[in-house]
């Protein structure tokens, strides 16, 4: 039950405990209670669990995490001359 997946808020109606919106999960649209994400607006992404938005996804944090994951390789190549050489050779073969 905890495997919420991200969806995009496409409209919002009501307020307070009945603040409700439609959320698009890649084409499947569901009605979701938005009372617990009072700051969310149309176009934002949220995690939905049993019909409730439980958190607003933080785009900046997502990009930061991804950039960090990509960086792992960049740093390794700099630190490891053999790996850098191998990578260059591979690139050269690819171009030839």
């Amino acid at each position, binding site marked *: *039950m905890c*495997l919420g997946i991200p969806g995009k808020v496409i409209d919002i109606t009501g307020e307070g405990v009945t603040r409700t919106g439609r959320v698009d999960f890649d084409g499947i649209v569901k009605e979701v209670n938005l009372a*617990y994400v009072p700051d969310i607006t149309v176009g934002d992404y949220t995690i939905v669990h049993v019909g409730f938005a439980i958190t607003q996804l933080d785009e900046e944090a997502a990009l930061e995490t991804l950039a960090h*994951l990509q960086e792992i390789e960049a740093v390794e190549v700099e630190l490891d001359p053999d790996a850098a050489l191998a990578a260059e050779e591979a690139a050269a073969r690819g171009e030839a």
Partner: protein
Amino acid sequence: MKYLDEFRDPELALRLIDDISRLATKRHVLMEVCGGQTHSIIRNGIDRLLPDEIEMVHGPGCPVCVTPLETIDKALAIASRDGVIFCSFGDMLRVPGSGRDLFSVKSAGGDVRVVYSPLDAVQIARDNPDHETVFFGIGFETTAPANAMAVYQAKREGLTNFSMLVSHVLVPPAMRAILDAPTNRVEAFLAAGHVCSVMGYEEYDPIAAEYGTPIVVTGFEPLDLLQGIKMAVVQLEEGRAEVENAYQRAVNRKGNLPAQAMVADVFTTIDRNWRGIGMIPQSGWALADDYRSLDAAERFTVTDIATVESPLCHAGEVLRGTLKPDECPAFGKECTPRTPLGATMVSAEGACAAYYLYGRFRELEASP
């Protein structure tokens, strides 16, 4: 799909696995607390891609699995009554009670309905004023705000024909119970991402400090899981024991404050019996005094419940992480998702179901 595909990139996953292999100089045992994470790990074969040094054991984070047998039996008794519409999440229907399940109550003519959200049950109560509508309110902290809202709205509207059979459980006391057990092997936890979306992660600081156990808040996609594992391994290798967050896009330190406020209003903390594990002090939520009139356990006095677990089932050891599902002698033989002996074989988050679903059979592995 945004926020999904990026975190499933196989190339980055392999790089993370390489990293973990380089970092791990000795054996480490990590537990993912949440059953959703267990399924993602087994489905993606993450446990097999990890270096031999890293062993993942699966935790008790499956609400359906830990709902006490006597509560299931109570649900079965209430659902069998005339004039009752019994609503539940779908997972609950096949969970074995003492001898039968909700599904068999339904086949025998009981009005048992699967709902997606607890608010659907409140709507059923509005639509059927001459029936009693009962919702089976189970779950961890992730589900509590939804169930609390259903109770809150029903009370606010004066819906006298709605009630909830509540069996909520909490992650931090379960972590302590696991670490306190003499047989414990767990050295670090991956904390359940969406539990922390609701509760934040400050409540884990004292556990990390007292037990010297690293705790990393972790998401559900392959890269999230691998990043969580990597951060836990780095801490273990460096001899640190802190709470870290590998799931920043969905979790912040304080969590969801409006959701916490609703939960604090509707629920109160109590000692709770966990199926297969036993009593854990202050590990559950029940309805607070102001909402007791909506407590199905009080509204429908159910007596004469004698609970019987299958003698073949080892779910308790599975839930504590001391036995892998495929080490249970009944796994895939007497016990399958069609003929489950324990709740861990039924739920979408149960470890036995994950092993069965993704073809983890010992015989097959052993054969050349």
